[in-house]
């Protein structure tokens, strides 16, 4: 379905742990249509000092009987936009654009699915998990964060998962380390057939590499900086390998796909991950889904043309 602009109402505002705010929004038209992995782009108010919308993947959708479904987003405080959203109260109105992007594809037959998430970037796995479980798929989970406080709502994932492995970088919950440290063993133990991963690019790159070695299909929801969210600004592009089977151009080529419209979910085997990953400053990262890290240092392909500094 095509996106629309909706004046959404705040239905609830709660916190998960110390760090994460969750806003449930009544957004008629979006709640009924949105698919796991899609996102919304939220105006933080009629500001002139910071003007861009902030993108958020859908954390959960709550069906309210015959009333419109509410959509829930979750975020931590990263800058002026999220600070403004964190001050929202029930019944406040928020200008929301959505649903945006292409979500996860759901297995056609019963499959053993592994959900892999890092930090607040794990948000879309909850909505995805609900959908997969409804469709009768087995779900296993690997959830990681820098410490126990930053594990996003692990309790709910534990409830839906057959196996739920947690990792923290400081060892305050689950295994000490990163999700990729336990990924291969979890996949082997669970007989994983499909992997769904959300989080910062370096994590996704490592997850994709492990899955490709194991020849397991992996879908990744990437976090890229975006200005518009609906396909016109060309800031959120990801380099993808594209196989062309026909004609004179048969072989491999690189295409720059828009995260906001062709993504944010991509086939992890198609993404060309850059070698150097930089964390962006906190006040900028709220312009990406999940806001973990951004790509950097990728060189344009040969013959790319030399554009101006602007545009």
């Amino acid at each position: 379905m095509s996106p629309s602009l909706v004046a959404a109402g705040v239905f609830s505002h709660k916190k998960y742990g110390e760090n994460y705010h969750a806003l449930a929004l009544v957004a008629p038209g979006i709640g009924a249509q949105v698919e796991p992995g899609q996102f919304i782009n939220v105006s933080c108010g009629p500001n002139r000092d910071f003007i861009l919308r902030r993108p958020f993947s859908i954390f959960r959708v709550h069906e309210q009987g015959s009333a419109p479904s509410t959509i829930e987003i979750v975020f931590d405080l990263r800058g002026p936009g999220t600070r403004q959203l964190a001050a929202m109260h029930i019944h406040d109105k928020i200008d929301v654009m959505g649903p945006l992007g292409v979500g996860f594809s759901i297995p056609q037959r019963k499959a053993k699915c592994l959900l892999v998430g890092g930090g607040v970037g794990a948000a879309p796995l909850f909505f995805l998990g609900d959908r997969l479980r409804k469709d009768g798929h087995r779900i296993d989970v690997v959830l990681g964060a820098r410490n126990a406080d930053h594990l996003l709502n692990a309790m709910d994932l534990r409830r839906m998962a057959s196996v739920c492995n947690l990792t923290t970088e400081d060892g305050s919950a689950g295994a000490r380390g990163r999700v990729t440290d336990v990924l291969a063993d979890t996949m082997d133990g669970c007989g994983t057939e499909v992997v769904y991963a959300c989080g910062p690019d370096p994590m996704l790159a490592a997850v994709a590499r492990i899955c490709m070695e194991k020849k397991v299909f992996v879908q990744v929801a990437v976090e890229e900086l975006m200005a518009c969210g609906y396909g016109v600004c060309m800031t959120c592009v990801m380099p993808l390998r594209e196989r062309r089977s026909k004609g004179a151009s048969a072989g491999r080529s690189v295409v720059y796909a828009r995260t906001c419209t062709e993504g944010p979910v991509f086939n992890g085997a198609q993404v060309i991950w850059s070698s150097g990953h930089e964390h962006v400053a906190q006040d900028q990262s709220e312009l990406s889904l999940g806001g973990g890290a951004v790509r950097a240092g990728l060189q344009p392909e040969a013959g790319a043309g030399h554009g101006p500094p602007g545009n």
Partner: protein
Amino acid sequence: MTPDLAVTLAGLRLANPVLAASGTFGAGREAAAFLDLKALGGVIVKSMTLTPWSGKPTPRMCETPSGMLNAIGIQNKGVEHFLAEDLPWLSAQDATVVASIAGNSVDEFVKVAHRIEAANTSLAAVELNISCPNLEDRNHIFAHSASATAEVVRSVKAVLRSKPVFAKLSPNVTSIPLIAESALEAGADGLSLINTVFGMAVDVSTRRPKLAGGMGGLSGPAIRPIAVRAVHEVHRLWPHVPIIGQGGVQTATDALELIMAGASAVAVGTANFVDPGACPKVAGGIRDYMAAGGVGDVAELVGCLKLEG
């Protein structure tokens, strides 16, 4: 009395004076999910080049106070794709379309202009994005040189005879009127003022530029006073030259500032990222202003700035 918002700039007829600025609206397809493209005065499409360009590395943008920096590198699918796919679709929507041409040499500009002329389409006008580096002159940006600006304009005008040509000037020069004069002498039918303002932002945690390309173009309300000044400077010297004012327009008041400074039409840029329906809203606000003030024709407002008394 119903205010008349229609304007004509050097033969470019617009139902209202508010266009979407190049690079902020694609070729209209995505925005069409949110609005009827006929409601816009016109669509200045994303710049097109002779061959497809894949653009610059990411990160390509960052937010700055009252604006944003971008370094996209004119990622586009080339003039042939525009003529075969985008233009027919836009025409089917009844949109008024302005093509934007970019290139890394005079010859590239000329070849694209030639393709457009040969295609003999319903295209309403052409804007020249000359804020590109000239690979044949040590990467100097065309718009930063009076002579390079003149050469592009003259060469394009020699092949593109059927459409009005607007030169989009850069604010990153010592004297905008000097470049404007050069563009006009070379045959530009009108001017677009302004392109983005060069800027840069640094991530102090990594000690790297926030954009992969280092520098970028600043847009958004932060640059509006620069645009108003540029339009004023040029209009004062050449009051009959049609100007498309652009730079940080979000509201009708913003647009009216540019119009009163001398712009016959305005283009809305970065605001489209926030609200795809920004252009018709700005046009509606201009209509309200005219109705409230008893202004019958928007042309009465162009350059109406009072400088004395």
